[in-house]
């Protein structure tokens, strides 16, 4: 039994980096001024907030720091982007999105659909990839917005937002919103070069604390304000800035830039994924087989005819943290909507486990995981009524 946990759930949240904590700490204590105050103490806070804005803009490859607005979380950024665009374009009643979006987009679009908007839900193929022709065909003169993610939280599959942006621009007046929550800090972002109008970021996915996010709004982009009050964030999101958290997000973005951990993360993920797929029977990779089309940190693997929750519980007992798309809870017994959209059969989807690595993982942690996993799978397979068929 290990003392320390092995945290392979970095798509859920990440550890606050010591550098980030160090940067935010003074603002939780002695540096408590209000950035809107006229005195020097307040103006120092303003400078810190604006510095953070530049750090975020730099990480996103934005043209200007003023394109960054701080929010409380990724969900807020996604919700605001979508609602804000629709409010600005009341005559345009059509939205295009995909079946595999995070709930922050998917459930909001479903809600808008119930309230009278028309939503085109783009399908994905068995590897979770999008067909750009279907996107082109879906665009209409009254399409207000196209919303899609850059990286899928469950499978790590990447959507080609650069190409999608071009298709949207060339074929419609729609604005293009990208949920970038899972991508920032993991792959390069070049908003300056992409035809992206809005881009959502969440702090805690990249080693900042929970409680802070950002929304990129392309220069000149019109977006109805989220909170109306004082003039903070240039009148677009009133409310006193959460200075410690804003500073943390800025530093986290800078950290991702100055020390790119993705080569290490990629090599650990590849090792883990290869070993599981090679050595454990009845496994299946969920998502793009071409690793260039996936985040470097994510491996979503199904153990056929096993229950994901059982695997999670056994790994949990071994102090290894992962996720499953099929947790049994009060609200839903349904397996992941993302895997369902990919046409993954139920018997496969129910045994899906998401391993998502991060900058603090080590090779010995991957080796440890690989040392305990086969026995866990073997034991659970021995309990399954399908065991005979699996062997046969």
């Amino acid at each position: 039994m290990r003392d320390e946990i092995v945290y392979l759930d970095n798509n859920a949240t990440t550890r606050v980096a010591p550098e980030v904590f160090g940067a935010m700490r003074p603002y939780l204590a002695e540096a408590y001024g209000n950035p809107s105050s006229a005195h020097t103490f307040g103006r120092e806070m303003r400078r810190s907030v604006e510095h953070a804005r530049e750090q975020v803009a730099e990480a996103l490859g934005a043209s200007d720091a003023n394109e960054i607005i701080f929010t409380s979380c990724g969900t807020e950024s996604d919700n605001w982007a979508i609602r804000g665009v629709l409010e600005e374009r009341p005559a345009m009643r059509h939205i295009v999105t995909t079946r595999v979006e995070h709930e922050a987009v998917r459930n909001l679009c479903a809600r808008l659909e119930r309230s009278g908007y028309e939503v085109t839900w783009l399908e994905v193929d068995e590897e979770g990839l999008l067909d750009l022709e279907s996107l082109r065909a879906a665009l209409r003169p009254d399409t207000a917005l196209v919303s899609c993610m850059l990286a899928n939280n469950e499978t790590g599959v990447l959507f080609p937002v650069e190409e999608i942006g071009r298709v949207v621009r060339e074929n419609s007046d729609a604005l293009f919103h990208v949920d970038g929550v899972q991508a920032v800090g993991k792959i390069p972002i070049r908003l300056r070069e992409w035809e992206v109008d809005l881009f959502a970021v969440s702090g805690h996915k990249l080693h900042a604390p929970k409680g802070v996010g950002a929304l990129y709004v392309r220069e000149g982009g019109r977006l109805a304000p989220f909170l109306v009050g004082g003039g903070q964030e240039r009148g677009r999101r009133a409310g006193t800035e959460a200075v410690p958290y804003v500073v943390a997000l800025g530093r986290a973005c800078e950290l991702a830039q100055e020390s790119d951990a993705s080569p290490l993360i990629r090599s650990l993920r590849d090792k883990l994924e290869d070993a599981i797929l090679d050595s454990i029977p009845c496994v299946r990779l969920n998502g793009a087989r071409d690793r260039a089309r996936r985040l470097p940190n994510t491996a979503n693997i199904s153990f056929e005819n096993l229950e994901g929750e059982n695997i999670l519980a056994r790994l949990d007992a071994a102090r290894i943290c992962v996720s499953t798309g099929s947790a049994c809870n009060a609200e839903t017994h349904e397996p992941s909507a993302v895997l369902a959209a990919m046409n993954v059969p139920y018997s496969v989807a129910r045994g899906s486990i998401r391993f998502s690595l991060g900058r603090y993982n080590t090779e010995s942690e991957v080796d440890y995981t690989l040392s305990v996993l086969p026995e866990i799978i073997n034991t659970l397979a021995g309990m399954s009524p399908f065991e005979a068929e699996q062997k046969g």
Partner: protein
Amino acid sequence: MSFYPGPVQQHFDHPRNVGDVEGADALGEAGSLKCGALLRLTLRIDAAGQTITDARFKALGCGYLIACASVLTETIKELPLARSALLNESAITDWFGGVPPERGHCAELCREALRLALADYHNARQEEWTGEEALICTCFGVSEQSIERAIRTHALRTVKEVTKACNAGAGCGSCRPLIEDILDDHWREMS
């Protein structure tokens, strides 16, 4: 802190009676459309003693289902058929001090698999039945003669006593009026 509550975790970590009874006398398979769980229960039954002598399970479902099935098999081993037929969900869930409502169907699934296994056994017994005597309790394969013998030997007066003595009437209950008649006939003759 464990993933599941202590008693559930204990049975999930070390489930009892996993597997299939070889050459089982009874098989019950129950599935849930709600959560896609599947449970297979196999039993060995001592026909003379009308008792379950071995019970094993295989399950595809959450840790609660595995724990419930583990407790079920422990509970019904060495249990007379009549008593196992009357077993309800709480006999399982009480062992865990209750389960959350959303996991309640795990125990229901166990109860269903047991019911189907017992039905499977009774169906097989009925098919095998070649005796000359009238079969009164088809659930437990008890003949009229056996019931009369039990009444005579133990001076039984009620259907309940008959059920306790020879299992007749413990299953679906459809033969209870017949047992009532046998009791009436017997005591009328005696008087």
